[in-house]
């Protein structure tokens, strides 16, 4: 298996799955190469992300990185959160095989997009 234990855990038991009906912002991004998608909901107040949830239709790396990134968001302030990079996410999950590096783009793009208005 080319994936780390940790990545597989986030794929099999993703955290922060779901929708936030009264979210302050929602973003939906898709990977232009494979068409995989991630949707991200956040509740923001006082410049801080109070809650975040995601849904994704994508490969295991997409799901794991999306889940991990969403979990990261909770409690973070918006300015910090904007700085999250795809490499940071990938690294935190034990790295990704070369052909899968692009999969973490979904999460970093969704974060950037969902925080645009704040």
């Amino acid at each position, binding site marked *: *298996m080319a994936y780390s234990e940790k990545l*597989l855990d986030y794929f099999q038991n993703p955290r922060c799955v779901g929708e936030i009906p009264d979210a302050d912002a929602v973003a939906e991004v898709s*990977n232009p190469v494979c068409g995989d998608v991630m949707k991200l909901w956040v509740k923001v107040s006082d410049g801080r992300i109070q809650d975040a949830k995601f849904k994704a*239709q994508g490969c295991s790396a997409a799901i794991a990185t999306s889940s991990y990134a969403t979990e990261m968001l909770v409690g973070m302030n918006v300015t910090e959160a904007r700085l999250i990079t795809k490499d940071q996410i990938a690294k935190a999950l034990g790295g990704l095989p070369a052909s899968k590096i692009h999969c973490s783009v979904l999460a970093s793009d969704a974060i950037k997009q969902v925080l645009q208005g704040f």
Partner: protein
Amino acid sequence: MRRVYLDSNATTPLRPEVVAAMMPVFTEHFGNASSIHWFGQHAKSLIDDARQHLAKLINAETAEIVFLSGGTEADNLAIRGIAESQKSAGRHIITSQIEHHAVLHTCKDLEKQGYEITWLPVSHDGLVNPADVRKAIRKDTILISIMHANNEIGTIQPIDEIGKIAAEADVYFHSDGVQSTGKIPVNVKSLGIDLYSMSAHKIHGPKGVGALFVKKGTALKPTMTGGGHERNRRSGTENVAGIVGFGEAARRAREGLMQDMPRVGQLRDRLEAGLQSHIELIHVNGGNAPRLPNTSNIMVDYAEGEGLVISLDLKGVAVSTGSACSSGSLEPSHVLTAIGKTPDEAHGSLRFSLSTMTALEDIDYVIEVLPGIVDRLRELSPYYKKV
């Protein structure tokens, strides 16, 4: 953990009989088949036997079988060999959009070198229309290359009709038979084929061994030059053990064509029926066309293929999204795209490929575990709404 292997179109384990046939070749009958002494002559006779098994499997003459390093080399030799030998006659080649990468990328390479390639489309069921082949033939057409059975969806092309059209037009006809050899009956004589690619590891033989059927009299420029082995068709010290293994695998496959393959077909049908009754919104790609008995390509709406493969793998089940070669790639399968699937749909497909070693329990285990996996992934999907 129970391990279930349903990725036989990628590769297969060796049959015990094949290993048994190869073992003495490694340490006792290890000669170089070109040597004139006892060790060499013994090795040569082993190769001759294997060549007979291959010839018999596809109804060829032994002198028409050229041993190579695999299916990829067979495709390369067939296409490059004809392209090179016929280039003064013309530079137009006809092939399809659903060929294996070994044909596809070789034709692309020739395209860059100034050859013209006609890439025939296929129907939504994954079939080339022979009438399209006929229409595509030009005065400068030197080769038609249409695979026998597709590795991703298993559809069997009407190569008998295409063979007739090629013969009438006096154009060389190559067919990539890597997936069909040993799984369905093949008769190169009645099919009107000039070149036919085969590979051992798809039928419980060793990897790194293949063969090309080259009809007597076919002009073919070798791609590998050296000591002039294989009647000057392919240089390089013969892989005696591998060839012996291929011979044994071919022999067993031929013997099993009438018994084993129908059983495999029943298991495949059981798999499809079982999955369809337990999982909503799934579709069998190529399901309306004649197919290999061992292959099932299933499109799962609202789930992504790699995630399914990894989830199944974590339950001990080995399947693939498409062909093994491209499993590292994000690009949607060119085969599924050619049969009209969107990239999104293509990305939600799973290939199950069985073999004579597949057990009923393997199938039932998949029917047991896959529904839960699909449910779980669908629940993650922002688009899926339970009906």
